[in-house]
């Protein structure tokens, strides 16, 4: 029992339960003392959940260091070399451990969200309601959206945390404690988010527009709260990433000698550092409206429902670039390795990331073309939205330039990279039709949009994400993922997904609205929906094979401690898995990162202390 309790995660969860209970108790108590009706489930749950989250981070010990400092004691970073496996289940300050923790959490969330998708996809396989109630459908659908998105944010954090210090030759992130804290905030946040199912669910979609979200069951509060907390986590971790990339670079690693992924990560972090606050704010305002009857978005009180949409999309559009920029970074990172050729137009690729991010701040209105927002805003938003296509195009063409006259090899990571490019192209090209208002008025809130963003998210995140896993798995574990199973995964997932998304767009054009639990047979989209469901399950199956592969390879995968892909990037110049504080010798950058094919040129060399 004591041993059990010594596992950080378990301890945290116990504390969270405790905290929730106490929170509910306190609130009810206070209300009782104030002579109000003691039992008010909504406020009780919110307060309880909040306290629960705090208790979690405290219980697991994510704040011990700070408490010590506040108390004026010395708080040296613990030496973790002796901890072994248990590091992964408790608070660790090592960015590699945290990165992998993020990765695991991300995969868990993806599985959960994906399973939700499978459930409601099965419901959609036929017209009429099969086995879900309307509320269940809406809850699953909305949670699918948000869980997946949180999953992505977490996954992005995973690779930024794991890779950046290694890539820039630092021994850790700038603020290891903050790093751990940010991660352990995401865990209770996810739990709270999912707990919304237990509290009656909610029927608002991941966008949670009021007034609907004001009338939804209590579940919506957990949704809002969970997302706000997770948002706080991303803010802190992106803060950390920026500072690290600015301050911890190795000698001679000037801006344009950074590995390209770092550029993507920087642009991403810039967005999540700033914009995230506004989704938090918009959600909290709805929470307050529900709890204290504040009339921000309540037309009866003169409030303005559109205001919410502006606040929400001011984050949620840039957010979509948070998903892709690291993904595109990974693509640009791996292409040269597998084309055995320099990255074409490095500077342009690097800058285009920031181009996308910055323009991305000015386009949120394109989600509101039909919403009845001020007329004069529509056209400017159309222009800015279309403009994003330009820097994105630069990336695509530079990738082609990178492949051109290379010596291309096709291991599994490369396959996923290529699929990523194709799928993201599909997704990207379906963006402009949504951007020109007249056509969007037809497309908005149909499955065409659903198709658009599944393409962009898969092409811009999921595929590169898997590529990255296959690519860096040896670095993380010293084992290599099985190629054959990897190919199975790939050849199941890619065709299945392309079918899924293409059909989504088709039925959307034919007039199927999104977020409907049941559809009109007279639309003649029943067959397509069946096929989509099957395709969905194939994707699920492929991902299942991936997990099997991962667990199998962890045990008896082929040992790979060397420079598996013979890459130039610093982390591959030392044996895998990485030692605790990365490089025992400081490194210095002496060449360009991607000079493949340039005889006897090196990127980094280690400084031998004399």
């Amino acid at each position: 029992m004591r041993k059990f309790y010594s596992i950080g995660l378990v301890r945290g969860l116990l504390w969270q339960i405790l905290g929730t209970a106490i929170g509910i108790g306190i609130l009810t108590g206070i209300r009782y003392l104030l002579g109000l009706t003691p039992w008010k489930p909504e406020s009780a749950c919110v307060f309880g959940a909040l306290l629960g989250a705090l208790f979690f981070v405290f219980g697991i010990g994510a704040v011990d260091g700070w408490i010590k400092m506040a108390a004026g004691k010395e708080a040296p970073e613990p030496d973790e070399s002796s901890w072994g496996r248990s590091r992964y289940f408790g608070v660790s300050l090592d960015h590699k451990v945290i990165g992998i923790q993020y990765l695991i959490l991300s995969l868990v969330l993806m599985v959960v969200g994906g399973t939700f998708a499978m459930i409601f996809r099965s419901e959609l396989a036929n017209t009429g309601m099969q086995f879900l109630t309307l509320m269940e459908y809406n809850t699953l659908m909305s949670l699918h959206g948000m869980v997946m998105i949180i999953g992505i944010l977490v996954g992005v954090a995973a690779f930024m945390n794991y890779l950046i210090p290694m890539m820039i030759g630092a021994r850790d992130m700038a603020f290891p404690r903050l790093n751990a804290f940010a991660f352990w905030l995401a865990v209770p946040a996810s739990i709270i988010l999912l707990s919304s199912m237990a509290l009656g669910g909610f029927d608002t979609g991941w966008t949670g527009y009021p007034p609907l979200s004001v009338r939804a069951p209590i579940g919506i509060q957990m949704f809002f709260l969970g997302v706000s907390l997770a948002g706080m986590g991303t803010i802190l971790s992106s803060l950390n990433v920026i500072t690290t990339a600015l301050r911890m670079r190795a000698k001679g690693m000037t801006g344009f000698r950074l590995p390209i992924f770092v550029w993507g990560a920087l642009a991403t972090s810039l967005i999540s550092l700033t914009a995230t606050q506004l989704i938090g704010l918009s959600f909290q305002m709805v929470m307050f409206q529900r709890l204290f009857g504040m009339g921000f978005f309540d037309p009866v009180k003169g409030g303005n429902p559109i205001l919410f949409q502006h606040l929400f999309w001011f984050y949620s559009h840039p957010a979509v670039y948070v998903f892709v920029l690291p993904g595109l970074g990974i693509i640009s990172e791996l292409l040269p390795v597998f084309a055995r050729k320099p990255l074409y137009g490095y500077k342009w690729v690097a800058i285009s990331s920031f181009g996308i991010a910055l323009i991305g701040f000015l386009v949120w209105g394109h989600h509101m073309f039909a919403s009845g927002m001020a007329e004069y805003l529509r056209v400017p938003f159309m222009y800015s939205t279309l403009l994003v296509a330009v820097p994105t195009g630069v990336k695509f063409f530079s990738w082609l330039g990178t492949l051109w006259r290379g010596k291309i090899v096709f291991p599994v990571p490369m396959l996923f990279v290529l699929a990523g490019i194709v799928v993201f192209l599909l997704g990207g090209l379906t963006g402009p039709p949504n951007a020109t208002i007249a056509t969007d008025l037809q497309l908005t809130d149909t499955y065409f949009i659903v198709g658009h963003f599944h393409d962009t998210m898969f092409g811009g995140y999921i595929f590169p994400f898997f590529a990255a896993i296959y690519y860096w798995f040896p670095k993380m574990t010293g084992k290599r993922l099985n190629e054959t199973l990897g190919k199975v995964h790939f050849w199941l997932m890619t065709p299945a997904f392309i079918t899924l998304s293409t059909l989504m767009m088709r039925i959307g054009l034919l007039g199927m609205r999104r977020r409907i639990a049941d559809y009109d047979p007279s639309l003649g989209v029943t067959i397509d929906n069946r096929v989509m469901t099957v395709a969905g399950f194939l994707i699920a199956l492929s991902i299942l094979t991936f997990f099997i592969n991962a667990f199998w390879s962890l045990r008896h995968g082929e040992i790979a401690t060397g420079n598996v892909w013979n890459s130039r990037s610093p982390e591959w110049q030392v044996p895998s898995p990485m030692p605790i504080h990365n490089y025992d010798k400081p490194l210095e950058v002496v060449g360009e990162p991607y000079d493949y094919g340039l005889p006897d040129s090196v990127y980094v060399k280690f400084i031998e202390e004399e």
Partner: protein
Amino acid sequence: MEHPSKSSVLQLGILVFGALAILTAVEFVIALTTNLWQVLAIIPFVKAGLVLYYYMHISRLFENDEDVDKESFAYKLATNRIGLWLFLLSDLFIFGGLMISRINLLGLTRPDLIQFLGLGVTTILLISSFFANRAEVSMEYGDRKQFLVSITFTMTLGILFLIGVLGVEWRLAPFGPSTNLAGAIFYVMTGFHAFHVLSGVIFLAIVLRNGAHGLYSSEKHWGVEASVVYWHFVDVVWFFFYPALYLIGTLAK
């Protein structure tokens, strides 16, 4: 770089405070006489500029230290600074969002509040900011006694501010959060701000305690600098909230 004499730095602090005080008074008068919202909208930026430059030393962010040894304290300090400022930048967006909401929902109307109380708490916060600066300066020059005194002042004033807003204004306000829009906006803006003030006070308390135990020296006092900069930030936010809530526009019904 050579250090200016301590007294001169303190004098600078006083001058800045004077300027801020005058500007605040001007705001108040304008609001009472001609309700020129354009002016009222500009003045806060001027005040913010002053504080950012003279009290928060934003310029310190841009000191180039490429050649400094990466393991040295100085380098780590600069890193922490960047971290802190990034945090403030991010925080700025919450308050920005609140401002946008206020402008969108209330436009040129404002909640019906007690003018003099508003002026009172604003002055209190302003003075506290002055003492915060004083505390930091005296720590930089290793004058621990003055540091402790000033930081105590800052804290107490901060607590006074909280009492003024939460204790008095919230009670006396002729509306509740659910009465009307103005009410909703008022409570949410002051609420968010008060939360930051509270965390600032706690932060200061910790610094005070550790300072009393002599943990800080004229070279190494990141804790002090951080808490003080944060405190100034909270004050700057209020520069904008004060006119937005008390001065600009006509009474909302």
